[in-house]
């Protein structure tokens, strides 16, 4: 029979292995007090695009709504100027 501590030990192990809560992320743009996002700044935009060229969900990237809207604007402009693809 398992010891009475066994259950607690198992739970502790699970907590260690669990991923950090995506909701707890902080906005990377707010940290630097970003006032605007430039569509020409490809290296800055790139991490927020996935393999297929879609804009990453802010639930996963942790970007706040204000900056997500700026990011969307910048990416759409970059797409129009053929700096970023619409769809891979």
């Amino acid at each position: 029979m398992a010891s009475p501590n066994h259950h607690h030990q198992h739970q502790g192990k699970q907590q260690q292995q669990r991923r950090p809560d995506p909701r707890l992320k902080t906005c990377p743009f707010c940290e630097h007090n970003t006032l605007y996002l430039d569509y020409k700044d490809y290296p800055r935009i790139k991490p927020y695009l996935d393999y297929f060229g879609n804009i990453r969900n802010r639930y996963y990237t942790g970007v706040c709504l204000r900056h997500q809207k700026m990011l969307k604007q910048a990416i759409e402009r970059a797409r129009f100027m053929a700096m970023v693809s619409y769809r891979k």
Partner: protein
Amino acid sequence: MPEISATSEDTRIYEWCILYPYLLGQKEEREFFKEVEDLFAEVGAKMVAKDLWGRRGLAYPVKGAKEGCFAVYHYEMDPAKVREVDVALRIMKGVLRHMFLKPPKHYHIVKFSETYEQWLKDRETTEEVRVREQEEKVKEQVARKAKRQAKLVTSERKKTKEPALEAEDLTQKIEELISDDSLNNL
């Protein structure tokens, strides 16, 4: 670069981005720039900044061109004249895409042609790091494989040791026989 602001109340600063195909002839390129700048000069616009990006691969083909060059201008001009220039650029030969926008508040003009080159260099180094890591992985795999093979060889030796002993016995017997023969001959 300092924050940009219009000098008078009647004018605004606009950013113009123009995409044109990658032209091989330098003369043609110069003519193209002259044409574009004349267009702005006609309207009475004042150039604030000019940034030529040079040859760039495009994310998707535009009017059959897979490579293009970008030119980013900052012009101080009358807002009433923007439409005029926009229409002219749309008609102009050699312009694949163009876009104008009003820079946001607190906007600083950055020369992206330089920062992009720097980024490319940094990215190369990250690429090198990735390659190095991959090589290390392969080396580890090779080492593991060698170890496994060494283990296999030792185990095989253990298996083959018993017949080796038999062979020794055989040689001993043969030697005995030979010695017997020699005795017989004597």
